[in-house]
């Protein structure tokens, strides 16, 4: 649909865009990214014919752009420039109706039913139909922007060039406009080239990205290839961290601000065993990875609860019940991670391990009444029953994502070893159990102090975790056995 070869040019004699090439298939969306002054708008103006080229070719539908007559081009390609102020006001309907200009010809051209249908649809799609008789100057920036998007849509061109279409729009309308464009791309084979300021938004919606730096193409390809931490850090001179979108297979970028991170340290005194729960209250949020009931996964939390519930606890919506519980104890719901156990928390074992500069805390509540051998779990028929090993490992240090996963592995391996050495059997199969069916694990770190790139079993921190979890588990298991009268 659009082919650009070696495009060079800019304002007057000054070349701003240099040797830019890309091509875009019909029914695809291309996002143009780049820092201020990298030539994004200049490139768009050159493609749309406002600025001259000093070199290069632009092919639209395999024909040079210059071979199109003005109105013909406007039927093929609609352009949304950035929003400017106007001296006089048209109404919204009049503004959108102007999008039909290239479809009308002759001195006495009539407004056709087709024109009416196109403008009405465009206004509906952008949600401006309700303002149709209002004057543009009385509308907000976002409403004006949507009116101009409607104008461009009313042109019914196959190719759409947009200069920051989501500028001035709030979150809802950003999503609405981008969803609508994506829908048009998918259903009507619309082809879109759009400048974006927000690279995360671009990554969500675009099939391809073009990253410009000083008027040249720095990277071009699928979002996953273009949006790399190194590339963005170099082009924008800003540290970023790449993370996965929770639902879509597209990268997202988080800004890493250049600010001093305050020291944060967990101490044994911050652990409290209350009536019904173990409560760790950190002074600052800890980076956490857990399989907790409330707020699982990765996150940042200040409060950590391990709560005892009755062995007969049955609840249709354990999540809501837990939320209520947290609220009733005047803890901030969004800053709290919470898990449940049938074990009375007076049996909770909390220990501190320190080796040179490395320091961790381990908390265990172990109820192994319904222990399971993971290798033979398929032999268990009945539904889950209470009987839980809850394990916390809190680390004073900085952990990478990789070390978080390794710390988790080390913790679980140490737990399994403790089950083995503690001779806990799966009653169903008669084999050594590896845990229970409802175990939970939590790894948390202060993210200040010592740096841990890895946390495997023979790294400094891994050794501490392995030993700490194993020893604490053994103590907790002995405690459990004593309570059950299995040992003296």
């Amino acid at each position, binding site marked *: 649909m659009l082919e650009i070869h070696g495009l060079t040019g800019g304002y007057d004699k000054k070349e701003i865009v240099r040797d830019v090439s890309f091509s875009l298939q019909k029914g695809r969306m291309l996002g143009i990214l780049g820092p201020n002054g990298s030539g994004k708008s200049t490139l768009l*103006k050159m493609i*749309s*014919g*406002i600025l001259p080229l000093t070199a290069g070719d632009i092919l639209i539908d395999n024909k040079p752009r210059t071979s199109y007559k*003005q*109105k*013909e*081009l*406007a*039927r093929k390609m*609609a*352009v949304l*420039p950035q929003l*400017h102020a*106007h*001296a*006089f*006001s*048209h*109404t919204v309907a*009049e*503004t959108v109706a*102007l*999008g039909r*200009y*290239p479809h*009308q010809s002759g*001195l006495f051209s009539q407004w056709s039913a087709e024109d009416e249908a196109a403008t009405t649809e465009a206004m509906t799609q952008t949600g401006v139909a309700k303002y149709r008789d209002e004057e543009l*100057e009385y509308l907000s920036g976002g409403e004006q922007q949507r009116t*101009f998007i409607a*104008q*461009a849509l009313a*042109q019914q061109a196959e190719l759409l060039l947009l200069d920051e279409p989501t500028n001035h729009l709030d979150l809802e309308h950003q999503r609405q406009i981008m969803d609508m464009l994506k829908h048009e791309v998918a259903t009507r084979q619309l082809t879109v080239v759009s400048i974006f300021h927000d690279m995360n938004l671009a990554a969500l919606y675009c099939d391809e990205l073009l990253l410009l730096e000083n008027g040249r193409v720095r990277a071009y390809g699928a979002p996953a290839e273009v949006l790399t931490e190194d590339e963005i850090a170099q082009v924008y001179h800003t540290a970023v961290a790449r993370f996965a979108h929770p639902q879509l297979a597209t990268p997202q970028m988080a800004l890493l601000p250049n600010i001093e991170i305050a020291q944060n340290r967990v101490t044994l005194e911050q652990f409290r065993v209350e009536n019904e729960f173990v409560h760790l209250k950190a002074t600052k949020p800890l980076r956490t990875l857990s399989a907790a009931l409330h707020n699982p996964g990765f996150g940042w939390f200040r409060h950590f609860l391990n709560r005892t519930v009755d062995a007969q606890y049955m609840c249709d919506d354990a999540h809501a019940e837990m939320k209520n519980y947290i609220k009733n104890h005047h803890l901030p719901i969004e800053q709290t991670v919470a898990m449940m156990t049938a074990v009375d928390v007076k049996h909770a074992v909390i220990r501190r391990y320190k080796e040179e500069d490395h320091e961790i805390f381990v908390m265990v509540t172990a109820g192994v009444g319904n222990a399971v051998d993971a290798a033979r779990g398929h032999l268990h028929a009945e539904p889950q029953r209470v009987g839980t090993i809850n394990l916390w490992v809190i680390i004073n240090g900085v952990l990478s994502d990789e070390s978080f996963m390794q710390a988790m592995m080390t913790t679980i391996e140490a737990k399994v070893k403790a089950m083995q050495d503690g001779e806990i059997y799966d009653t169903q199969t008669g084999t050594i159990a590896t845990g229970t069916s409802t175990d939970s694990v939590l790894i948390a770190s202060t993210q200040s102090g010592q740096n841990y790139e890895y946390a495997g079993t023979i790294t400094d921190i891994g050794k501490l975790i392995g030993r700490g979890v194993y020893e604490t588990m053994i103590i907790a298991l002995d405690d459990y056995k004593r309570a059950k009268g299995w040992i003296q």
Partner: protein
Amino acid sequence: MKKHVVGYTVSFALLVVAAWFAISIGSVKVPLSVLWNPSSADAASANIIWKIRVPRVILAGLVGAALAMAGAAFQGLLKNPLADPYTLGVSSGASVGAVMTIFFGISSSALGLYTLPIFSMIGAMVAMVLVLGFSRLVDRSMKMETLILTGIIISAFLSSVISLMIALTGEELRQILNWLMGSVSMRGWPYIKMIWPFLLVGALMLWMNRKELNALLFGEERAHYLGVNVKRSKWMILVGGSILTGCAVAVSGTIGFVGLVVPHMTRLLFGADHRHLLPLSIINGATLLIVCDLVARTIIAPSELPIGVITSFIGAPVFAYIFFRQRRKGR
């Protein structure tokens, strides 16, 4: 759509009423019945009506229509609410032509009565070529700012030429000043015959660009994207508006405010869509100037005031109000 039907109906009714009164009222009262039934008129009344009043009213209407339409187009094209037909300096050229004719006492037997308006129109065309040519020389894309600035430069220069001639003149001073303040009296049919073809051409050039003017209101860039041949439209609007202005000034002098106020009032009442703004401005411009001329010649009868005094007297407060409203709105 309904708003425009009302607009045309009201505007046209006002024009008819204004013309009616302007024809019947004057130093010699002509009974309305004469107008109903011209055959019953005595010879004197018929003469007054057909030789003096009717051409005067028609000329006032044509001049008002031309100025208002040119004003509407220039405001739209220049995207400037303060623009009027005189912004581009074409009127100053026309004035220089006319004042030179009076100052040097130019009279041509071949041109006769037409000497002054023809020199004036030549002045207008020279000024137009100067402004457009210089703008193009400065900036090939002829940005609006360039046009406005060039207009101001040329106007200022030509005004100084006029001032010089006024300063050096003796007995013709009153004649020059009277011409500058504008009047449509004692022109008669020949003037109308002289200018109407030009007015028609100018008006057509603007009317053909009514949709383009709508698009240009959003700036040349957006208009370009909408498929408007911006360069061609701009030239047609500039030349068309200049022809209208030049003709109007040549026959009636620089009558102020019509071209500024009428488009604004029309826009406020009936919207900014040029498809209706241009014709409505024509009708309302004609009405306003017919009324102003009526007031100018009756208010201190038997003497006459220059029509420019009345338009400015009415126009300035109206414009002040519009200006106030616009600023308040911007906040």
